[in-house]
Every structure is written in structure tokens, then in C-alpha cells.
């Protein structure tokens, strides 16, 4: 029985309604409790900021495309003129890599920043075993993974024929097979069309040979998701990513949520999460007249209450892009002439990987940086707005503290903006320079804790400090009465003074104390459906006819997920 009391910190937590009031946080046996006895270990948090452990709603940290990045970018471990691999503590595993870090570095760096839960945002079902092997080896962080459904042959057929029961039974089957968490949809139809050298650029472009449109796919996936009453909403990377003028496709995609209503027992009241919105908020017709449409897109997001978004902030680093949006990666490699790798995953999905340098002297990159910040700063409901870098696509997750500091300190971001080579062009084509808003610590706690936990359906255990919740607590060397600015704020957010995971002190003064201080859990969703002979027949038939492996070798067996946390849902 371990008891800890974190005393006299300024607590920011929307779940318990604290906006920086001085309060004590009590921990007993891995959970937050009302009070503890006199013998409790005391942590002095006076003059410091206390928040729940953070939750990353969208990151790429495990699985075949991450590893493909590691394979073909050995140079990633030598960056910034230093050896990134040299980071080692006496009691922890050696850490390596910058934009595609090793599993150890991933777990430790997230812990240093105070993170407790990561959502791997794209799991190819066929390679789910690999995803879970990496998740298993990532220390400290509880994790889950979203299988991709937006280019899946089964789903195309069921949704096109309006067979909602079959679609739901198939999704439930895949979640059970892959130990998956929910429905991810990447470039709906477009990645399949890419197999034929084509793409879907609007929500109405039909997928070749399947004659279903992205709009029908998104609509059908939302209906399936709510029919199954899953904890998370549909998680969408819409069509036409990264192209000038794409904001109309984005708005068309978001509008599909209008006809739907959330149906679940997890406190989630939204039906569609649009990820890395920065890449989808572009105006203009070419890179020459490219401009920000962040305001237009966020005006819609602000008034449409059943959708959520994450930002996808560009961090101005050399990074490694990777997405199940195969055609986009091909397109990107033709723009920057660097290395390109592509994988097709049989009947299910595809992925591409390309190194990318977001240069401070490249107009497009400077614009993307500004647009990402605008999106967060235009948000009215911070419980529907989350900060991500779409790690590693817009930048490595290790830059979160820098992104937070840009959002929280106008002077800091303006210094960056004014230092750009194309700063006057960026100021003309975006509205960032006119925005005075600075995100508060309380808003930050919503965007990085309560909001992602809620949209993932984990709001009762993660993202807050109310009694009964998991004792994930981050303490930062930030005194709200004397707020640090700029780089000092960034450094304070990068190295938690303390981080407790499930009530265990894992980090002190930015140093991870042990290699595997806690048992990390893998969350997956077991949605019960009536037995569906049609779907089971279709599955075995497709495996016989098309898959390169046997059905028996498909499922993620128990030993891949040694510490499962199963969320069971009763039959719809």
C-alpha cells in the first residue's frame, strides 16, 4: 500500500474544476484518492504546476511503417550536430533516434514530458502483430492502436451495399483479431485508388472498381462506429492532404458528421475526430498563391459541436513523414527528391515513408508552421481541440514543449515568425501576426489531457485528477504567479520535475529513474455482435482467395499483448 501526497502545487485540471488553485493531490495504490494518512510520502509542489498525465490522441510510434523509417533512415540518429543515440542513464535502456526514435526512447521521452497514454494512429491489421510487439517494448506508456479501415475491401463492399450489420460485425472481428481500439480512416478510397495509379481528391471521387465514394465511406464508418457504441469516434485523415486549396475537401468531409449522433457509454459526445487539421486547411491553387484557410475551417469546427480535431503542428525540423496515404508520399518525394519507400498491405491499406526538411527558409514550411498555430489559437472549445505534431509527420513529438510554448507566449512565436526568410509573405498569407491570444495553463491541460482522454472514451480514468482516476500526475517547474517565458517555459515543459505513472514515481527532474518502472497496459476494445455467418464466410473466402497468409496466422495472440486492458461492450 503506497501513499503519496503532492502538496501545495498549482493544480490545473478541468475534471476536478481546478484552474491553478493551490491544492494537494493524493495517491493510493495507483489511483487518485481524496486523502491519505500521515505516513504518506510528501512531494513538495509549492510554486509548481500540477496536471494529470498527458494523453497523445494521434502519434505514430509502433509498427511496420515506423520501423521502415528506422531501417532506411539510419542517419536519423545523427542529427542536430550531436549524437542523439548517446542519451543514456545508469538505470535505463540506451536511447536512439530523433524523428523515429527507438521504442525505449519513445517511452522515456514521453514520460519526461509527463505523458501517460499514447494512441498509435494507424495499425495495418495484417501487421498488427508487429505493432503490438513494439507497443509491448515501449516502456511506461499505456497504449492502444487504431486499425485502418478507410481502404479495406470488406468495408467497401458492405458499406456500398448498405449492410451496416455486416460492416459492424467485420469491424468487431478485426478489433478482436488485431487487439485494436477503434476505426481509423486514412485518405478514404484514395490509398486503394493509388493501387491503380489514381487518387480520390474530393469526397465524391469514386474508388475505381468499387464504385464507392469517400463520402459514403466516411458516412458508413461513422454509422458503424455508433452502431457498435465504440469508446472513440471515427478518426479521420481526410482526402486531399497537403495540397493547396484542400480546405473545401476538409469542410465537405467534416460536414458528413452533421447527420450523426454519438451513441456510447463512455462519455464521448462527438462522432468524428479529424486529425492533423493543419495539413488540411490550405487555400490557393498552387504553392505560389498558397494561403491559410485555418480561420474558415476553425469557424466551422467551432460551431459543429459533434466533431473534434487535432492540430498537426509543424515544428521546423528535419523529420520523417509516414502515412497510410501512399499517393501523398509519392507526391511528396517528387517534390523534394529525397528517398521514398512504399508498402502495399494486400487487401487492407498501403503506406509511404519520405524524409522531409521543414526549413526555416522555405516559404511553404513557414506557412505550414503558422497555419498549425492558427488552428489552435482560433479554437473556441479546448475540449474539442488537441495539440499534436502528427509525430513524426509534422515534427517529432519531443517538440511538444516548443509547440506549447509558441502557443502560450506570443512574443516567442512572433520572434520565430519575424525571423523567417519569407516572414512578410507568411504574415500576408496567414493571420498569425494579428492573433494576440496566449493559451493558458488551464487550456493546455484541456488540450493535452482532458480533451484527448474524453474523445478516446477514457475520460473516467485518464486526463484528470479526480478521485478514482489513474494516478498519472505530472509536476512542472512552472510557477503560474511568475510565469516563465519562451525557452524557459519550453524547458520546464520538456522535463517534468516529477512524473507519476499509476502512482509510481518514474521521472524526477527530467530523468527517468528506472528502465521499466511500471507495468504498461495495452488497451483494446472487444465489441460484442450477434454471430454473423456471412462475415465469417466472407473472411475465410477472402483469405483463401487473396491473402498471402492463412487466417490462423492473422490474429494477435495473447503473448503479443502480455498486459491487456480489455474494454468490453455489450451487444448492440
Amino acid at each position, binding site marked *: 500500500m503506497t501513499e503519496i501526497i503532492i502538496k501545495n502545487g498549482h493544480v490545473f485540471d478541468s475534471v476536478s474544476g481546478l484552474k491553478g488553485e493551490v491544492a494537494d493531490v493524493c495517491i493510493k495504490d495507483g489511483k487518485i484518492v481524496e486523502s491519505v494518512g500521515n505516513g504518506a510520502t510528501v512531494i513538495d509542489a509549492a510554486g509548481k504546476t500540477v496536471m494529470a498525465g498527458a494523453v497523445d490522441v494521434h502519434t505514430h510510434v509502433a509498427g511496420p511503417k515506423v520501423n521502415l523509417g528506422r531501417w*532506411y*533512415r*539510419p*542517419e*536519423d540518429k*545523427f542529427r542536430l*550536430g*550531436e*549524437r542523439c543515440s*548517446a542519451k*543514456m542513464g*545508469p538505470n535505463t535502456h*540506451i536511447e536512439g533516434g530523433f524523428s523515429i526514435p527507438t521504442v525505449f526512447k519513445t517511452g522515456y521521452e514521453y514520460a519526461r514530458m509527463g505523458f501517460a497514454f499514447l494512441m498509435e494512429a494507424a495499425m495495418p491489421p495484417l501487421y498488427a502483430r508487429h505493432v503490438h510487439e513494439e507497443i509491448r517494448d515501449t516502456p511506461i506508456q499505456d497504449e492502444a492502436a487504431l486499425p485502418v479501415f478507410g481502404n479495406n475491401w470488406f468495408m467497401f463492399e458492405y458499406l456500398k451495399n448498405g449492410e451496416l450489420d455486416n460492416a459492424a460485425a467485420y469491424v468487431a472481428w478485426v478489433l478482436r483479431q488485431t487487439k485494436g481500439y477503434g476505426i481509423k480512416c486514412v485518405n478514404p478510397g484514395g490509398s486503394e485508388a493509388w493501387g491503380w495509379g489514381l487518387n480520390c481528391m474530393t469526397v465524391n471521387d469514386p474508388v475505381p472498381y468499387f464504385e464507392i465514394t469517400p463520402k459514403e465511406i466516411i458516412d458508413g464508418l461513422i454509422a458503424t462506429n455508433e452502431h457498435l457504441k465504440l469508446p472513440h469516434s471515427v478518426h479521420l485523415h481526410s482526402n486531399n492532404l497537403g495540397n493547396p486549396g484542400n480546405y473545401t475537401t476538409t469542410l465537405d468531409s467534416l460536414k458528413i458528421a452533421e447527420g450523426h449522433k454519438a451513441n456510447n457509454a463512455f462519455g464521448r459526445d462527438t462522432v468524428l475526430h479529424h486529425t492533423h487539421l493543419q495539413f488540411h486547411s490550405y487555400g490557393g491553387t498552387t504553392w505560389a498563391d498558397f494561403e491559410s484557410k485555418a480561420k474558415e475551417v476553425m469557424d466551422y469546427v467551432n460551431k459543429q459541436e459533434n466533431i473534434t480535431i487535432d492540430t498537426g503542428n509543424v515544428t521546423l525540423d528535419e523529420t520523417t513523414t509516414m502515412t497510410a496515404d501512399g499517393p501523398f508520399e509519392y507526391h511528396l518525394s517528387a517534390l523534394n527528391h*529525397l*528517398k521514398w519507400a512504399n508498402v502495399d498491405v494486400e487487401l487492407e491499406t498501403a503506406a509511404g515513408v519520405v524524409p522531409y526538411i521543414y526549413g526555416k527558409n522555405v516559404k511553404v514550411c513557414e506557412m505550414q508552421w503558422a497555419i498549425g498555430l492558427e488552428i489552435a489559437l482560433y479554437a473556441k472549445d479546448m475540449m474539442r481541440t488537441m495539440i499534436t505534431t502528427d509525430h513524426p509527420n509534422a515534427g517529432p513529438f519531443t517538440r511538444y514543449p516548443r509547440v506549447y510554448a509558441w502557443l502560450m507566449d506570443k512574443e516567442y512565436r512572433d520572434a520565430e515568425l519575424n525571423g523567417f526568410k519569407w516572414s512578410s509573405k507568411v504574415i500576408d498569407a496567414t493571420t498569425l501576426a494579428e492573433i494576440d491570444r496566449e493559451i493558458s495553463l488551464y487550456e493546455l491541460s484541456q488540450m493535452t489531457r482532458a480533451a484527448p482522454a474524453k474523445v478516446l472514451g477514457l475520460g473516467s480514468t485518464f486526463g484528470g485528477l479526480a478521485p478514482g482516476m489513474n494516478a498519472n500526475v505530472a509536476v512542472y517547474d512552472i510557477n503560474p504567479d511568475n510565469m516563465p517565458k519562451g525557452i524557459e517555459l519550453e524547458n520546464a515543459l520538456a522535463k517534468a520535475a516529477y512524473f507519476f505513472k499509476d502512482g509510481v514515481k518514474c521521472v524526477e527532474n527530467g530523468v527517468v529513474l528506472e528502465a521499466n518502472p511500471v507495468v504498461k497496459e495495452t488497451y483494446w476494445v472487444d465489441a460484442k455482435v450477434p454471430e454473423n455467418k456471412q462475415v465469417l464466410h466472407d473472411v475465410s473466402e477472402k483469405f483463401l482467395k487473396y491473402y498471402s497468409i492463412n487466417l490462423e496466422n492473422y490474429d494477435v495472440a495473447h503473448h503479443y499483448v502480455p498486459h491487456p486492458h480489455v474494454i468490453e461492450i455489450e451487444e448492440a
Partner: protein
Amino acid sequence: MDTVTITLKKVPGLYLECESVTPDKFAGKNAEEIAALPCAEGKRNYVLGDWFEIAGAAGATAADTKIVVNGAGTDKCKYIGAWMTAGEVVVNGTADMFTGAWMEGGKLTVKGDVRSFSALQMKGGEFIIEGRAWNYLAAAYRGDWRGMQGGTIRVKGDVGSDLGTFMNGGTIIVEGNADIHVGTHAEGGTIIIKGKAHRRVGGQMVKGEIYVFGGCDVMMPGFKKIEEREIEVDGEKHVFNVFIGDLGERHPKSKGEVVYGHLYTLKE
């Protein structure tokens, strides 16, 4: 210029990570402070003082600092002079991998051999290797497309394979012979081999100059002889066969002219 002499006390069992051994890291420090600089052996963290006897003090800046590395076991030291920007380093023996890698300036002399990946992605300065160099001298790091950009390297002996991969600028002079893969993917710079090169010289080269006095055992098929010309190279005047290539690659244009890589061999 002030000189710091560091002498290995014993031969390391594993390899020492000596990225602290540069004029930049030593600058402004006395012997005691230098002894406190980090130095890992495998995954164990030590300080330089655990491994080296340190005599003398550094100058105020890197440019005012000379380091002499002595003792049996220098061949178990990696990263000596890596990332150095100024000053001087002399290794009285053989040095292990990554010696002078990412070097930007100053002078680095190794009296023995250097092992693979030395002078990797070098940007500037002068690097003299009195013995031979192993593979990947002055190449891009594996996977990277940004090779040597500047500076000068002189190797008195032979070099291994993959010399100057993705080279962009600077000069490499090899007084001995070179193994396979010379200047692969080169986009600039000059490689001079006084001996002979084995094969695959200038493969996928787009731009830059490669001189092979002793000729190549096997020429790449993508090179075409265009002329014979007298040229002065490293103080010697000779008549060379001049080839352009690699014709299997797409080549950029400059002022309306297609730019090629050039390969020169001595006319018999």
C-alpha cells in the same frame, strides 16, 4: 597555442567514445576540468580522467588549443576530433571509427591508420592520415545523402571501399590505392588517387572530379572518353585521359550546358 597532452593509462576493453577530445570541448579548461569531461566505454559512463593522464591546459578558444593523444590503445578510441571547428589534434597512433567525422575546421593529424567512417560528412579543415584509411572515408553517413562538403584530406597510404560517397565539395588526396566504390553519387568535390582504383569508380556520379593516376582495374560502363589533356594535379603535371559520366544518371544543366562528372586517368 596551448598544448594538452592526454595519454591512455590502459587499453580499453571495449571502445571509448571520445567525442570530448576536441579543441572545442577542451577550450578554456585546465587539466582538472578536462579530466571531468564525459567519456563512455560501451554503455558505461566515465570521465576522461578515468582513462587518460592529462597534462597541460587548453587555450582560451578552440583555435588556441592543440591536443596530443598518446599511449597504447588509441585504436580503441572513436570520435577523436569529431565535430571540431578549430585548433589542432594529433594522434600518435591509430584511431578508431568516426575520427574527424563532421569536422568543420582546424587540423587533425593521425600518425597511424584511421578506421571506417572517418571524416564522415566533413565540412572544412585539414585532415592528414599518415597510415591508411579503412572504408567509408569522407562518405555520407549510411542512409544520408549529404556527403563531404569542404576541407582537405590527405591519406599517405591506401583507402578501403566507399571513399567519398555523396561527395559535394572539398578535396581528398590518396597517395596509395583505393578499393571499390569511389565517389559514388558524387555531386561535387575532387578526389585524387595517386595509385590505382579497383572498380566502380564514379558510379552514379553527377558532378565533381576524380583523378586516378594508376587507372581503374575495371571502368564503369557509364563513362565516355572525350579528350586527352595536360593538367596540373597536386603539384604534378601530367597528360590525362578525360572521361565524362556517369551517363546512366540524369545530369543538371548550368548556363545551357549539361554538367557531367569527370574522371581522369594518366595517359600511358
